[in-house]
């Protein structure tokens, strides 16, 4: 079990763009290196990647303001 922490403060997005589906849904399998969301800060979007393999459960909502070090998801 591993929590995926936000590397940056900003806004968390679970989708690549507003009209696209989410990168991952709760319960989906992810592999290390998979993009699971974006953090927007300073006019740029930064990809958040899984750091381990497993099933993902999100702990932050789409468009939620997040702090650096805040858990975004759990990968079990």
């Amino acid at each position, binding site marked *: 079990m591993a929590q995926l*922490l936000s*590397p*940056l*403060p*900003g*806004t968390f997005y679970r989708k690549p763009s507003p009209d696209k589906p989410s990168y991952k849904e709760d319960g989906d399998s992810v592999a290390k290196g998979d993009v699971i969301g974006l953090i*927007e*800060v*300073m*006019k740029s979007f*930064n990809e958040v990647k899984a750091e381990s393999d497993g099933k993902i459960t999100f702990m932050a909502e789409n468009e939620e*303001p997040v*702090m*650096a*070090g805040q858990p975004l998801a759990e990968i079990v």
Partner: protein
Amino acid sequence: MAVNVIKPGLSTTVQDLGRPGYYHIGIPLSGAMDRLAAKAANWLVGNKEGAAVLEAVFMGPELKFTEEATVAVTGAELPPKVDGEVRDTWTSFKVKKGQTLSFDFLKKGARAYIAISGGIDVPVVLGSRSTYALGALGGFTGRKLEAGDKLPVGKGRAVKEGRSVPEKLRRGPGQPAELRMIPGLYWHRITEAAGKQFLADTWKVANEADRIGYRFKGGKPLEFVAREQPFGAGSDPSNIVDACYPYGSIQIPSGTEPIVLHRDAVSGGGYFMVGAVISADMDLIGQMQPNTPARFVEVTMAQALKARKDRAKLIEKIKAGL
């Protein structure tokens, strides 16, 4: 000696105390957004206050040292690690030849200043080593750091490790942050009620906040005094005939989201400014994360000058203690 950049962080730039004297021809001040922190970092490692340091925003870089050096990290609480072992912020420590300096997650603040004994030895451009990335001027080839860069570092003098700035002298923004401001030439463009509202509202730092300017959102839109727009001004009521934008000036395009111009600001344009944040509080802005609540507090010129003096005393006190 050189420091090799393994990972650059989000946006890490070489900065010193800036490049004043060219703003009238469009080249901004640049330099550290939190000048107190940059000076303190330099003093901790035995550098002059104006030596070039690294400014890392939100996320630290990973740096490999090719020679031993003394390092200090000030400003934001971005815990430094030497070969994985955590070191204190605002305190000098040694990094040995071959060791790697990396950083933990940001705990508080926004910008960390990484001083290395000897200073970052990039060429001086128009009197400063600061990076002005928009203009590709100064710093490390005019841009933020990238993986693979070899940063030249000057020859330092030996200083003890463990030198530290007392906690009570480290200043950051409160919650909400209070930014003191002086109403300016264009204050009359908004109604009296709008002026009161601007000062009463609690604003929040938007995601669009960088070295050029800090945008705030969440307050009520401002109402303008009706007028026939003068020749040369745009049609929006927030437009003016182009004017100079001072460092710290607060423009409010369309009366909705205030923008405080900071070290890499444009020097002029056609938006009215309600006033300017006083110089003593500009360092605080550099330490504000997105979503930080903030209020604008009106002060007089006399109060602003007193605040500047107090700030200078605080900086002297830090210097005297090292």
